[in-house]
């Protein structure tokens, strides 16, 4: 289990602290503004650039031949820019969908990671002059004939990247069943497995991940031209100047073209980089979303909360039942069944839930078992928590005096009957507080299923925040929704405990 097993009141404290943390971050980042950012970089002697190397080819990713070294066209670009500025470049890893907030927080000087220049982002950060002209490419399975372009996507399951321009374009296409991912490897994986009908992502991504895959093919020509720009904090205008100058020099010296050609990314469209004044058409506006009142997002967040509840309740039901079975097998059966149950409990408790989810969803298809996201979520959480519930039941059984079983046996009851009628009912009562506590933990751990393309509350928040960049307000709303659901739960749990404690013995 990854989440901590917090109780209700601890969670409450956490919620109250949240605004304070945000305030502090806000103050600390604004107090740094004003001075000459470019001079600071030179003074420090390194240019810190942020990006996401996880599934980051061909932008920035670990060299398959030597995974300690990062390669990619943006690695070379960052190096070239830093060289012009007279300092070495150093990469800072950060999840792609939170690169902008991390930049604002001051984790690095700039972001070079296929960040499309969009109005939403322009309102938040400065952009360098464009360094690449991207297009979006639709990819489908080899045998697919019905999908030739964006117009054919109505009602289809289409994967894309959270917060990317391709996501906005899909939303504007209308009627598309959009499946949002945090990485670029997984959507193509799911497409090949038939869990998606198409994937719509930036051409460099498609060129690296989809084109070599014999199961997949491009559908139609690239769509929606736009620019990648280097994101810089708003107050760091001098850094933007320095970076713009550097890009200009790399363009004119042909260095930039050399890099792109090396990665197979150069095309005629890149000529536009020399005249970047005209803003390209793509990346249409999310301005409405940025300025919309908070209430507009409630339906989406509530739907996410509904999924969270569904996933938690079903998984917990599974955990409670499977846990009981495991506990009984471990303690009252013999031979291989007993060993299997013990191993199960130890293995599931000894490995991270996140890895179990990945194995279940992306690993099992390798042996021919393809689960839907919902089923994988139920099974992943349920099977993990079953191991913990089994241990709770065991503790409950051990808390029942031996005399209970002996009295039942002396009355002629079989072991099985004595267990069912005498020992278990008492043991389960002992286990109840732990089980309700686990339910609250599971409820919060359910956010982990977002890694397998389940859009529950946390994921909904991530998506909305990544497109609108309203991390603070939406974060508070999402946290409040979690709290509003878990607090009554812990109250109920406490009431139940008190009732059970009041009765018997």
């Amino acid at each position, binding site marked *: 289990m990854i989440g901590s097993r917090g109780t209700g009141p601890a969670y409450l404290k956490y919620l109250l602290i949240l605004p304070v943390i945000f305030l502090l971050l806000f103050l600390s980042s604004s107090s740094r503004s004003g001075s000459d950012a470019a001079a600071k970089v030179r003074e420090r002697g390194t240019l810190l650039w942020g990006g996401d190397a996880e599934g980051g080819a061909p932008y920035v990713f670990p060299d398959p031949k030597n995974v300690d070294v990062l390669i990619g066209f943006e690695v070379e670009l960052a190096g070239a820019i830093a060289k012009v500025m007279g300092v070495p470049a150093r990469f800072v890893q950060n999840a792609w969908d939170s690169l902008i907030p991390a930049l604002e927080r001051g984790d690095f000087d700039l972001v070079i990671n296929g960040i499309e220049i969009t109005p939403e982002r322009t309102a938040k950060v400065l952009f360098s002059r464009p360094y690449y002209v991207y297009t979006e490419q639709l990819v489908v399975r080899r045998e697919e004939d019905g999908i030739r372009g964006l117009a054919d996507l109505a009602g289809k399951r289409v994967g894309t990247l959270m917060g990317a321009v391709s996501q906005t374009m899909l939303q504007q296409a209308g009627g598309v069943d959009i499946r949002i991912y945090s990485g670029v490897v997984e959507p193509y994986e799911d497409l090949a497995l038939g869990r998606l009908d198409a994937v719509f992502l930036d051409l460099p991504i498609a060129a690296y991940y989809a084109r070599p895959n014999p199961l997949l093919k491009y559908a139609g020509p690239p769509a929606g031209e736009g620019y990648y720009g280097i994101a810089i904090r708003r107050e760091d205008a001098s850094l933007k100047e320095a970076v713009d100058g550097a890009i200009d020099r790399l363009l004119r010296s042909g260095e930039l073209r050399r890099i792109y050609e090396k990665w197979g990314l150069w095309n005629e469209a890149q000529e536009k980089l020399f005249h970047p004044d005209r803003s390209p058409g793509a990346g249409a506006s999310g301005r409405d979303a940025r300025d919309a009142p908070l209430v507009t997002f409630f339906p989406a967040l509530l739907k996410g909360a509904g999924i969270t509840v569904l996933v938690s309740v079903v998984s917990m039901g599974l955990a409670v039942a499977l846990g009981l079975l495991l506990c009984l097998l471990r303690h009252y059966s013999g031979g291989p069944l007993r060993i299997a149950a013990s191993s199960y409990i130890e293995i599931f408790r000894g490995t991270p839930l996140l890895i179990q989810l990945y194995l279940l969803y992306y690993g099992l298809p390798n042996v021919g078992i393809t689960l839907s996201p919902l089923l994988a979520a139920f099974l992943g959480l349920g099977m993990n928590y079953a191991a913990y519930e089994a241990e709770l039941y065991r503790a409950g059984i051990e808390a029942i*005096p031996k*005399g*209970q079983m*002996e*009295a*039942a*046996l*002396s*009355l*002629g*009851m*079989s072991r099985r*009957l004595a267990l069912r*009628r*005498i020992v278990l*009912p*008492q043991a389960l*009562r002992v286990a109840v507080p732990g089980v309700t506590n686990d339910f609250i933990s599971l409820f919060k751990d359910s956010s982990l299923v977002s890694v397998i393309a389940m859009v529950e509350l946390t994921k909904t928040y991530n998506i909305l925040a990544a497109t609108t960049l309203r991390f603070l307000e939406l974060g508070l709303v999402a946290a409040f929704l979690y709290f509003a659901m878990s607090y009554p739960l812990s109250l109920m749990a406490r009431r139940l405990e008190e009732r059970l404690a009041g*009765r*018997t*013995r």
Partner: protein
Amino acid sequence: MISVRGLHKSFGKQPLFRGIDLEITKGEVVACIGPSGSGKSTFLRCINGLEPFQQGEIVVGGVELHSLNREKPGRADREAIRKVRLKVGMVFQQFNLFPHMTVLDNIIEAPTRVLRLSRNDATQRAVGLLRRVNLERKIDSHPSELSGGEQQRVAIARALAMKPEAMLFDEPTSSLDPEMVGEVLSVIQALVEEGMTTLIATHEMDFAREVADRIVVFDQGEIVEAGTPEEIFRHPKKDRTLMFLRRVLRRNALPPG
């Protein structure tokens, strides 16, 4: 009715019984006395199949319990143990009532589920038994609402509800406050007078003397001496018996010695 021959029992490497023999005929009342740790409880638990033993034979009402493979009883052994348990009822020092059930449910649980009596018949039987132990009014209480003496009387009723042919009592009054000992002993006494075959481990010497046909003295896993109350209390043959009686009867009249 109960016959024990050559019983050997050890806990791991620690031997306790090294060949015990005892015959109890139908209707006989036998009291086991002896110092703490001498093996009285273990002896009763062996007869009831709650403890495995290594050698010897226990026959209860014609059903034989065999020793050697008892650590991992096979089907036939399990069947024998169950038959024996249906023939003898057992009452424990700690009562061991089921705390999550009412008094009534405690009593009818086994008759309905093991003997497959209808709930009505079992309830009638339970009411009759509760009347006998004078606890009718507690029929719907939970064990936690009863005094120790009341709990032990319910436990006796619960064992009797299975209509056993013999009863085993393991120190039925040892966890009770002194003022409750009498009420439990008088229930046992009434039972004995009805002719119930009874084996009782007890520290209540007066009671043993009064109800028992035979007294068996245990010490360090051996039967030191057995005889009528008169023989044991008035004319003990063994020094160990005398020493034990001296210790427990300090304030009472001592046998001439």
